[in-house]
């Protein structure tokens, strides 16, 4: 819903009201500032809170006796193990890869667990294709376009279907986003846990992908003019060239909204995953002491108090005591 409103807002704003400067220059800049400042503040806010205890979730064998094979990545005892664990988590979504689905057989009263790869696959395709699209867009902000970027683009368009050629990443991004959305709507439990804040970014990204694909293949945007605008933004000499259609401004506006929305939303999981204490710490707490910066003294029931409570009974049971009953001195020696 909100995304349709945003679409109308930007399209009408540009086409009818002629607010090109607002949607092409002011809002993108503002969005970028909000994005950068917002993300930095959020990450700094997390980092400000200490990690009082080392609490990794151990997902494999600990390092103990030399002949027992340690799971060096899933139960890391070294920094490198942690780095490997984090890389696998961030680049390959390792934990999600473990996903299973529970099955109930009422006839046999049996519970079963099946490997469930689709969420992992959908998420992986979604994030990697998003990254590819982002990288591909760098061509609009760089002059001359670096060779590696051109090579990357040729990989992305290797299918060589149609003219201009279909970019795989754009199609995959749209498909993956639609998959994640469908999953949210169709699976009863996922629908149950979904908030507006879960649908909104998905719709927004779908909007971005559709408007992008539309410009490339259907409305045929003037790429030179678009690049002129992008270069203007990148070099801080913003211009609004002629011949850019309303769809472009819709695309740019959606991206701006996404950027501005980012720091205030669950999209911050991108930064948060790096700071997750159950994943980014070594699990060798018994071998190397972890320091809690706010570790404060607490009331304890000391042995002396305990013995005072039970001395007579202890002596009766033949248990050794530090102080005898008749000894009133604080440091009694008799036992």
């Amino acid at each position, binding site marked *: 819903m909100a995304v349709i409103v945003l679409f109308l807002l930007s399209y009408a704003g540009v086409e009818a009201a002629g607010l090109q400067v607002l949607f092409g220059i002011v809002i993108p800049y503002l969005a970028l500032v909000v994005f950068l400042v917002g993300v930095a503040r*959020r990450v700094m806010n*997390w980092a400000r*809170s*200490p*990690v*009082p*205890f080392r609490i990794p*979730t*151990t*997902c*494999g064998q*600990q390092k*103990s*006796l030399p002949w*027992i*094979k340690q799971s060096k990545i*899933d139960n890391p005892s070294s920094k490198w193990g942690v780095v490997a664990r984090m890389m696998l*988590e961030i680049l390959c979504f390792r*934990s999600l890869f*473990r996903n*299973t*689905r529970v099955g109930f057989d009422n006839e046999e*009263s049996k*519970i079963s*667990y099946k490997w469930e790869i689709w*969420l992992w696959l959908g998420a992986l395709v979604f994030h990697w294709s998003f990254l590819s699209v982002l990288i591909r867009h760098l061509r609009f902000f760089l002059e001359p376009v670096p060779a590696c970027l051109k090579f990357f683009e040729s990989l992305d368009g290797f299918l060589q279907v149609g003219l201009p050629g279909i970019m795989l990443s754009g199609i995959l991004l749209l498909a993956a986003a639609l998959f994640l959305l469908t999953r949210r709507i169709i*699976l*009863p*439990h996922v629908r*149950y*846990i979904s*908030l507006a804040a*879960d649908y909104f970014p998905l719709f927004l990204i779908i909007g971005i992908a559709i408007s992008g694909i539309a410009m490339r293949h259907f409305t045929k945007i003037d790429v030179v003019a678009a690049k002129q605008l992008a270069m203007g933004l990148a070099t801080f000499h913003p211009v609004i060239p002629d011949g850019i259609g309303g769809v472009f401004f819709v695309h740019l506006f959606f991206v701006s909204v996404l950027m501005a929305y980012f720091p*205030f939303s*669950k999209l*911050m*999981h991108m930064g948060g*995953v790096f*700071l*997750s*204490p*159950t*994943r980014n710490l070594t*699990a060798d*707490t*018994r*071998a190397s*002491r972890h320091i809690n910066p*706010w570790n404060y003294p*607490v009331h*304890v*029931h000391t*042995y002396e108090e*305990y013995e005072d409570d*039970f001395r007579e009974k*202890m002596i009766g*049971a*033949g*248990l*050794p005591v530090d102080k005898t009953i008749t000894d009133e001195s604080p440091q009694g020696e008799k036992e």
Partner: protein
Amino acid sequence: MSDDLGKPDEFFSRIDHRPSATGWMDTPTEIRKGIYCYASNPKSVEYLGLPNARKWDPTAEDWGLPENWQEIIAEGFRDRLERFRSFKVFMDICVRCGACADKCHFFIGTGDPKNMPVVRAELLRSVYRNDFTTAGKVLGKLAGARPMTIEVLKEIWYYFFQCSECRRCSVFCPYGIDTAEITIMGRELLNLIGLNIDWIATPVANCYRTGNHLGIQPHAFKDMIDFFVEDIEELTGITVEPSFNQKGADILFITPSGDVFADPGTYTAMGYLLLFHYLKEKYGFSITWSTYASEGGNFGFFTSHETMKRLNAKMYAEAKRLGVKWILGGECGHMWRVIHQYMDTMNGPADFLEEPVSPITGTRFENAKSTKMVHIAEFLADLVHHDKLDLDVSRNDHLKVTYHDSCNPARGMGMLEEPRDVIKAVCNHFYEMPANTIREETFCCGSGSGLNAGENMELRLAGGLPRANAVKYVHEKHGVNMLACVCAIDRAALPPLMEYWVPEVDVTGLCELVANALIVPGEAERTTNLRGEPLSGTEDEDVE
């Protein structure tokens, strides 16, 4: 209790996983008998000096809260966000992908959608968004925010005592969000206004005063051990002589008091005694029990970080007072999460102890060189590896054993192979349960984190269902008849679970299996195991 729950297959087919038609925020929570635990006894709360000690009833309208309870919760929330990065990050980054949903044993067993880990966390997150985030303040319910009302508080209380802090969901979460951590924080907040359950509060108070959860006073503790000594003598002809509070012993031994108190944990305790006697006779091993630090478990962990520290402090204090070299820890679950991930940080450094070395094999326990506390399964795995135990494995031949990884040693420590090595060394017949139900994917007994009360038996049987179902599988496939574990709560919780779901399977601790196979110098020929049951070899000798 389980009578009105009907037959197991009826219980099973009653479980309905369809979520309610209304959203979770719009579905009121009813605090139901069989699910909730009784309220904390004011005497226990008072003894510990914790806030708002009074008699209260979870089903009553009025919970006897302080007038400014909302303020206390909000302030406590802010304080914990500032002190725990885990809490802050976990409040912020969930994307509600749902991967955790069907990983929770309580969700699988109850079908209650609010038992999905993600929703359990959202119960608290919704309040967090309302009080601490811009989006929540501006957009309110649209951003998944809601103010803390008495209904919300009651819901949080109800569901945060339906989480056993087992961390299974955190294995599957792409960001490692740990519901245990969130539950720990939630329970801390609830404790600020006196909303604990009695099954936690009273053991904590007992432990603070007497040194153990059961409130066993020193002389009675010794009596109970002496009772085991008599039993062992009767069964094996061996007189074991445990030492208590002995200064100058090499090693201090600490285990959960549950094993001194109730079957089948008592057989594990007898196992310890026999094992230590053997090591002393054979290798001059010198170990002492403490009546002051007579609890390995730590229900303070289920109350607050501070309470955990207060109870845990006794371990190092006693080790220091007795002048031992290092500490050996018995079989317990959450005790080992506390020792492995918290103790040294909270109450260390243990610079008055030595780096643990096995006096028998010379093995250095490098993995425990700072905390200086070794798990008995690690200690035993080293002994069997070096062939230091004389064993008659055939004494366990009537057993077909499977092993239940306790949540905390598995996911808060990673002790997976050590107990298996020991079991395989003392039993000829060992079978694993399906891969998705063991090791880091192990299922809780359904009663962890202080939920092993009597009044919530329906919840316990539901939460333990995934575990029981996996046991049933190996029972039917391989004839498994013994479920081994290294946790005292397991030994208390699994027997009723098995009795309901898989009555043919019994429960044992690791050290009971070891002691049954152990050939102790000077023992009479064993005709029974430590339970007094005839051994297979003596029963039908002609078969062999």
